[in-house]
């Protein structure tokens, strides 16, 4: 018998969407053993994130709950779960895929859209304050060079990253 050749049905449509995104390919392998959850340092401190639950909800097609909630943004990308998963589900990568889908659908937490805006406008994620710039010589650090924001913008345009901000605005 050939392994892993199951046929898809319409009810799995959402997991198909996830599986067709980069990083999401392995989602259907999950058999809910919970190794990820008990490996997860975030789940240890907050009940708001449980990787097993995120995967389960996705497999069940609970798209709205997954995409509009905060859970997928709480993963700290330590990859502990991915190392230990006995089914080789690339859990952290699946969560990246889910984040990408969420963004496409306009579900992006403010902090991330601020990061995106910073990158597009300034070429940096973390804004540089006047105070910090003044302090740098005290520590023997050279002044911060300009980022070459035009080049960054070009890359962001080619990769489609710049659309993230607009989509966010459209969605609002």
């Amino acid at each position, binding site marked *: 018998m*050939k392994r892993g050749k199951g046929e898809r049905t319409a009810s799995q449509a959402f997991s198909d969407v996830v599986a067709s995104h980069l990083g999401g390919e392995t989602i259907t*392998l999950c058999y*809910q*053993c919970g190794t990820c959850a008990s*490996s997860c340092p975030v*789940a*240890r401190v907050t*009940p708001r994130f449980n990787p*097993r639950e995120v995967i389960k909800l996705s497999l069940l097609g609970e798209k709205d709950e997954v995409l509009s909630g905060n859970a997928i943004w709480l993963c700290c990308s330590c990859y502990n779960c991915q190392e*230990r998963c006995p089914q080789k589900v690339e859990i952290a990568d699946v969560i990246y895929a889910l984040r990408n889908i969420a963004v496409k659908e306009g579900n992006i937490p403010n902090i991330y859209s601020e990061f995106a805006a910073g990158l597009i406008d300034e070429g940096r994620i973390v804004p540089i304050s006047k105070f910090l710039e003044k302090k740098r010589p005290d520590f023997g650090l050279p002044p911060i060079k300009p980022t070459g924001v035009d080049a960054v913008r070009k890359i962001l345009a080619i990769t489609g990253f710049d659309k993230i901000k607009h989509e966010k605005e459209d969605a609002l």
Partner: protein
Amino acid sequence: MKMNEVKVGVFLSDCGNQLSEILDFNALTNYVKGVSDVVLIKRSSEFWRGEGLRIIVDAVKRGKINRVVVAESLPKLSEVNIVRAVEEAGLNPYLVEVIDLKDHCAWPHRKTPKEATEKAKAMLLAATERAKLLEPIEKLEFPALKSALVIGGGIAGMQTSVDLADLGFEVNLVEKEPFLGGLAARAGRFFPTDDCAICIQSPASDVKAITHTSRKCVYRSGFTEIPNLKIFANSKVVGVEGVPGNYKVTIEKKPRYVNELKCVRCDLCTTVCPVEVPDKYNAKLKTRKAIYMITPNVHPPVYVIDESVCKFHDCSKCVEVCPTNAIELDQKNKRITLNVGSIIVATGFQEFDSSLIKEYHYGDYPDVITNLELARMIDGFGPTGGEIIKPSDRKLAKKIVMVQCVGSRDRRWNAYCSGICCMISLKHASLIKTAYPDVDVTVCYIDIRTTGREHEYYYERAREMGVKFVKGRPSEISWNPETGRLIVDVEDELLKRLLELDADLVVLAPAMVPAEGTKELAEILGLELDEDGFFKEYNAKLRPTETKLRGMYLCGGATFPKDAPTTSLHAHSAAIKAAKFLTTGKIVKDQRTAVVNEEYCGDCEFCPVTCPYGAISLEPTSEDHIVARISDLLCEGCGVCVGTCPLNAIELRHSRPNQMLAQMKALMSINGTSKPLILTICCSECGHTAVDSSGMAMMQYPANVRVMKVPCTGILQVHQFLEAFKAGAQGVMIVGCKSDGCHYEVGIQKAEKKVELAKILLKEYGIEPERLEMFNMVYIEGDKFTEAAQTMTERLQKFGKLQLMGGS
């Protein structure tokens, strides 16, 4: 009768006039009359039994005919009867050709009777042309020794040995360890009977101490004393030569350093032996001497010296005290040759190395143990006398956590479910709870699998006894140096709560993997392993204990982890299969094999590597080049070598290229429909029966579709597809088994490749490659065949008539 004169008799069954409502039998009879070499035509309601069959037999007996063509329904059933009767009448059965005018013609074309009649003519012509070219095939006999080699002395090997020995065969049982019993002996108790693991069925010999119903420990079952059973412990198979029925097996017997005939088990040697080492058999929970026995009740009941630690002549204390002079420190490796007719592999399985799963720290923390190690503790004969202890400080374990699926259902190691570990853990949990009700036992599981008879009751009993269950696979086991206890991280999925279970003892339930040395043995025997490394059976559904090599069988855990009841079933099955093979002392087989034309053959190595049965060897000839030689004993007549040979130097005796070509031309010689002719080449296995089932269910497809049978699609060569077009086919369909379901292992895959290649060629020639198509189906997919025939017809109608340059 002149020697080469061909006289064909054609027998048309109208199935009790059912067929004559569709087919014009007068037209058919008249047509066949005009076919050369046809000397007799008869029509009856049936020819495969009764009066009809007597007509055939009579014609054969009187020498009127020497080729028989029968158009009969249900040919796969009727052919057996017809062929048998013809053979009894004195004609070689391979000179008979049976076709099915009902399911291949009248039924599927019942709405177009005129077209069906024309197709029937073509079918009769094809059968007659083929029959004329058929040649007699002889029965061959090969001698087979009435003896067997059984490899592995666990329960599978012992049970199959008892069966074969009881049936009177000479049996040689080879066990690589110094003692029999295998993994089972270490398991202590078995589910679902809770009885001892070393208990086996007694031989059926008529001895005072043994009754038919005896079920006893190996050492007192009488098993070891069966006269026609030889046991070679501490031995392994190092070489196998020969063919089914006549294998020459070389085994290497390691020195035991104790004479089996002299030792009286007085135990003086172990008392004086100064070397003390951790006892691996007993999970290193106790020590043993350099001279030892694993447990008191084993076979052979003789000590063995561990040569890796013994000081031999520098010490010799055991030699000095032995009252029977049984200790022989100068014993050497011995090579023994055995001649056997059959080989049975019963090498079993072993625990997966849990230390590979780093986060469980097996091997780092002494209090993390495996199921087999726990089994030794539970065993009253074991190192702790039945007490469950923490190996680190040997104090009693009060809290035990069991972890399921360690290395199984784990795509990093073994993707499969080992199937028996849930039951082993439930058994252990219950045994612990029975003996020590106060001990806290928690089982962490992904899914509890208790699918066997009475197995669910183990789960029920465990819950009744207070065993706790946590649904969740632990992510990590850590050790708290302050408390000296273990911590198991697990999510209780049902509570959605992360737990940190503390434990004195963590018991892992490791996957069961192929026994050590499985790969090497498979190479020696020429057997295949599956992707998990277990021995591969011939057909999991129908021939679970057979291999594709006649004379070699498998049983027990060698094919997959098994519990004791299944292992017994398997062992008995292998024994009956081996007995069936050996019982007459000869192998009788039709010479339905491939034959090499040595004039053309030479110096390539394609066929030996392609043959699924290892039947082809390369041998040097006097003309200073090598040619292929085919073993009539090993060849199964599939024709994969024929399809592979680049020089057309190989032919099948029962399916020669000229026979196929004659059939092809005849089928394409009459159309009678307005549709483009399609030649369908089917394998004789699933492909042809799919056509049968489509006709039997009266599914309708057009009569331009003509069917020709070959043993396996693997026989086909690219030029044959082109010949079909040249013969007048507008399209060619190849119908074979499923890609992974070829009855000859690789034939369909070879055919698929050739179709791909032929398509490229067709394109080069300016012919639409879609005129050639491959289809895979099984018997029940008659609808798939009907659909394929219709689709192909429509497709070809769109393409229009095929123009071949210089073609006929």
